[in-house]
């Protein structure tokens, strides 16, 4: 009994000392100017996470060793919520801010960093039993009607006619979509809403929608799993995911009538071509862009910052990082299959970054 009491006292003392008594080793000093380590926190979208990780790493190592970034990929919704609650220094979102969100935080600005694409992937075996690889051509209205449930068989003339060299099988189309809310769905459904009045009426665009047909899979992995398991199926995933997992995907007909392959270049072309119509708050939906080389199902991913940042040291660091990322970070973006912004868009974003202020109006630059 006496020994047990001893142990109890020892534990109590240890807890008190660990929590209160002993002075901790020198913590990095955040707000005191040059020469101190600055930690910048951000949260949000999962789509750009691999690229942002790479950028943060290279930047901290090579360009500015006195800054550390801490990014949590909790999803676009979470990112928007956290930056609106001002618990992080920057937010990240694949979806543009809604009217509700813009009204709740009028000072929050969207800065496009890179663009990504959504590809229409499929698992298809032709009438001779051969696997159909990348390159199936689809027109926008055929695509919309497949996802609306109006086109139900693969050898429907609307698909067969634009694919004269593929013998499509007489098989039902199994449709797969995302069951979780995501930026990928946001882009895809907004694209369909733009090219199909019926889709706009019946379903609309959003991170999660009321799908007319199809099975839902959780995440890109879920959709890919369904496509792999289900013969003669079609679905949509991110470009990077499709390429890394060697999935077959379609060439979609763009506004000018060309069937465009989804690549980093065709997405950057879309960004360039649509730059003229960039709205004031830079929250542009890049889908269905004009231009003969543009891939139609593309979208920006945004970093969210306040026009007037609360901390000047951090504001300067964030500004410098973002300018570096947009200019010299391009090479890393390409290697990870993200499309860098078109040249004119890049210029616009850098100008907007230079116009940031901090702590009540002091210019950051």
């Amino acid at each position: 009994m006496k020994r047990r009491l001893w142990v109890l006292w020892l534990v109590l003392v240890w807890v008190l000392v660990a929590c209160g008594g002993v002075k901790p080793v020198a913590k990095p000093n955040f707000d005191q100017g040059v020469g101190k380590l600055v930690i910048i926190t951000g949260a949000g979208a999962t789509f750009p996470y691999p690229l942002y990780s790479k950028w943060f790493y290279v930047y901290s190592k090579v360009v500015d060793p006195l800054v550390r970034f801490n990014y949590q990929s909790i999803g676009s919704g979470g990112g928007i919520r956290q930056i609106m609650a001002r618990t992080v220094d920057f937010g990240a979102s694949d979806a543009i801010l809604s009217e509700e969100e813009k009204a709740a935080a009028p000072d929050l600005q969207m800065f496009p960093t890179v663009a990504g694409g959504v590809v229409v992937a499929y698992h298809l075996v032709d009438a001779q039993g051969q696997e159909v690889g990348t390159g199936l051509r689809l027109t926008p209205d055929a695509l919309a009607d497949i996802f609306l449930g109006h086109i139900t068989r693969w050898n429907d003339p609307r698909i067969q006619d634009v694919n004269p060299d593929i013998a499509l099988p007489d098989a039902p189309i199994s449709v797969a979509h995302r069951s979780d809310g995501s930026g990928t769905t946001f882009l895809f459904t907004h694209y369909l809403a733009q090219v199909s009045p019926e889709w706009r009426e019946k379903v609309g665009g959003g991170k999660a929608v009321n799908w007319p047909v199809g099975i839902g899979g959780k995440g890109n992995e879920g959709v890919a799993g369904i496509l792999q398991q289900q013969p003669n199926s079609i679905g949509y995933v991110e470009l990077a995911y499709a390429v890394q997992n060697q999935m077959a995907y379609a060439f979609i007909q763009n506004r000018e009538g060309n069937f465009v392959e989804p690549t980093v270049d065709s997405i950057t072309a879309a960004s360039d071509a649509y730059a003229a119509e960039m709205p004031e708050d830079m929250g542009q939906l890049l889908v269905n862009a004009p231009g003969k080389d543009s891939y139609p199902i593309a979208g920006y991913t945004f970093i969210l910052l306040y026009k007037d940042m609360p901390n000047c040291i951090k504001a300067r660091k964030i500004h410098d990082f973002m300018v570096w990322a947009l200019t010299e970070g391009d090479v890393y973006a390409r290697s990870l299959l993200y499309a860098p912004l078109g040249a004119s868009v890049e210029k616009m974003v850098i100008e907007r970054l230079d116009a940031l202020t901090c702590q009540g109006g002091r210019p950051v630059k």
Partner: protein
Amino acid sequence: MEHLLQAIGILGPTRKNRGDVLFEGFLLLMALTLVGLVVFLFFELVLGSWPAIRAFGVRFVTSRTWDPVRDEYGALPAMYGTIVSSLLALAVAGPVGLFSAVFLAEFAPSWLERPLSFLIELLASIPSVVYGLWGLFVMVPLLRQVEVFLHQHAGDVPLFSCMPWGIGMLAAVVILAIMILPYSTAVARDVIRAVPRAQREAMLALGATRWETIWHVVIPYARSGIVGGLMLALGRALGETMAVTMLIGNRPDISLCLFNPAYTLASQIANEFTEATSEIYLSALVELGLVLFAITFLMNILARLLVLSMGTPGRR
């Protein structure tokens, strides 16, 4: 303090030891904390779902539409999916579990019984996600062949009349049945083992066969325990999320056909919670949680009543 505890009936009338008073008071506190947690959970669920309750009212549990773009939400498909998938899984796992339990308790030699029991209990410790992955890549292709067969030969029956996807209600039912099997089996086995030897020997002495003994005496004697095990299994099935969401097809539809995709309350919450940004959307998802809480609560009460109505062992 002592008088309070004596009044409640925890402390005996003659106990006056300080240590005992403290100890029993502490235990009471722990128990009340548990109850308090459940009440707090319920309270928070109601609070979180209040905007949706106000906006939709009873329509929430009768509407089939789930439309995040128009902010129109109805829980009926998810409720249907949850209840149907769990009950069907129980219908499969219940008999299999019971017969396995009888085998393990009555017939298996101990060199077989111990490893078998261990393996069955091991099923309970496999993570849900692993079940989902195994189900998606191993079970679904096999199940699809079974479904195609059923569709071709019994396609007129409404249960089999739709397109055999592979992924769908049937896949979820099968995986749930496998997941809840250890719960029904282990409990049933222990309860059957606990039936007094006197009962069995009396039956055998009257000239009954082994089979008759088990069916007419052992199982009825262990009835309330077996049902308790089944209810435990049902509870697990109602709340199961990951494995189900990978196999059920995630489509808020109500359909009689077993091959069609469906949705459960837990899957719907897990899928949509992180990206739900509008207040009414979030509130609708919390209300789904409240509905699931209510369903589980009701099932547990029903289970209690069922067990109570079966009477104590030995009496009819």
